[in-house]
């Protein structure tokens, strides 16, 4: 850790004089590639709305944590996020109601339940920080957690990507080639839930979904194959986090929002490039 700090301090940027900026920098270059990776598949499977619902459910997780008297609500958030993700997938598979309706119902219910619990247990104000998030409050221990999640995600992705791709092309075809469709889908949903819950304190409920969707959406505009799709999304995510953090330092704006805005600019640029190529 000291080595990384030392390296960052040696760089000619005034923002690295502060430990919290170093931590924020490290956190953002860990979080954004994680979301870029998962985002490629979330966009392929048209799950933007689903991941948004997961973000909203963070409030209920925090609320449950408060009710259970936990110091750190992370475990309650993780548990509830995974639970909600699996339930939505299950209800969607039953095909009784259209999936955006299902997701909307769960999303609103989880958000409202969270707000009800939190406002009852002594003022909602101190939790409103979760709405926008603050990456400048990342500590060293948090960095280790995020790095661990990123590492596990990359390993899982090497194993899980092929079956997931088959499922998103055609479920029956995947099943005929021995893919356990439900298992694979559930693991992916759990991965998204974990990524969202681990990062939501730093990125914020309102913006977390943009981090998942925008880099992948921008990469899709110009990528030709699965490889370039992933690496372009990852590079875009890193660019957004670096530019966003620097700009937010200079102009004193919210770091998360500035990153998302940068990613949005990348999307419109690549959209124009994609259109011109056609």
């Amino acid at each position: 850790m000291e080595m990384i700090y030392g390296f960052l301090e040696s760089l000619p940027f005034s923002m690295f004089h502060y430990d919290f900026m170093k931590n924020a920098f490290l956190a953002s270059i860990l979080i954004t590639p994680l979301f870029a990776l998962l985002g490629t598949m979330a966009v392929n499977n048209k799950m933007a709305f689903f991941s948004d619902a997961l973000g909203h459910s963070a409030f209920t997780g925090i609320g449950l944590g408060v009710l259970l008297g936990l110091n750190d609500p992370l475990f309650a958030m993780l548990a509830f996020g995974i639970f909600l993700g699996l339930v939505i997938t299950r209800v969607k598979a039953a095909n009784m109601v259209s999936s955006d309706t299902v997701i909307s119902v769960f999303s609103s219910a989880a958000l409202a339940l969270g707000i009800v619990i939190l406002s009852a247990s002594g003022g909602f104000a101190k939790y409103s920080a979760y709405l926008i998030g603050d990456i400048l409050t990342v500590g060293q221990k948090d960095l280790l957690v995020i790095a661990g999640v990123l590492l596990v995600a990359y390993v899982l992705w090497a194993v899980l990507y092929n079956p997931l791709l088959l499922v998103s092309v055609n479920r029956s075809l995947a099943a005929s080639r021995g893919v356990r469709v439900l298992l694979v889908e559930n693991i992916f949903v759990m991965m998204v839930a974990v990524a969202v819950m681990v990062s939501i304190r730093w990125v914020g409920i309102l913006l977390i979904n943009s981090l998942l969707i925008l880099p992948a959406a921008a990469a899709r505009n110009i990528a030709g194959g699965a490889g370039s799709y992933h690496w372009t999304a990852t590079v875009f995510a890193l660019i957004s986090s670096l530019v966003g953090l620097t700009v937010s330092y200079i102009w004193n704006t919210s770091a998360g929002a500035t990153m998302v805005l940068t990613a949005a600019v990348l999307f419109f640029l690549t959209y124009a490039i994609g259109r011109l190529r056609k």
Partner: protein
Amino acid sequence: MNTGIHNSCGLCRIDMQHITVTSGEDTLLEDVNLTFHCGELTALIGRNGAGKTTLLKALLGERQYKGRIHFTDHNGTEVPVPKIGYVPQQMDFDKSMPVTVSDFMAAAKGGYGVWLGKNRKRKQEIQHMLEEMDCGYLAHRRLGALSGGELQRVLLALATDPVPDLLVLDEPVSGVDLAGLDLFYKRVTELRDKQHMAVLLVSHDLGLIQKYADRVVLLDKTVVAQGEAETVFAAKEFRETFGFAPGEVAVWK
């Protein structure tokens, strides 16, 4: 099980015995008894909702059923986990997905995630599979940019590698032009003869069935008629299902 011989002749027989599938109150299939032989192209016909897709799903293990399905090789030994090649009916995936044909094929063949790249051996293997179906030139195209006929050939290339015990084609010709159709069926019959595999085809195209199928099964929740195309087309159950006399089938030829 002698895998060497098994590969050369496919599986000798698939027996479906007393297959019943229900969904809530509805009975989708009732007491279906069918045998598919290897080296034979069996066509499954019937009106919409007759249970054709349900029958395929039961065969693919995607749908729970009552009854038994046996796969037996030419030695009479039962094959516990048969290899099934499947060409799906519809591919309603996101057409703008940045995935090339070779990405898709590599993903289907397994191994580490294709986003990490493909080594030369993997690429050559896929190129070879595609060339077998006369579509080697498609390897680097985007999957969503293929025409109906091109996609069918790619899917057939995939379904026949590794050589399956049973090849299942679910109405594989929607959105394919006539020349493409003929090419597709030529390849399928070639595979049937060379690899001696059992082929099950679900189709509405009676003309094509008459031309290529060895045996026709008319399904309406259960098997109502089966035999050679002429026999089934002449059956009274056929007339009841399709509402025209067998002579009129000639229109499709």
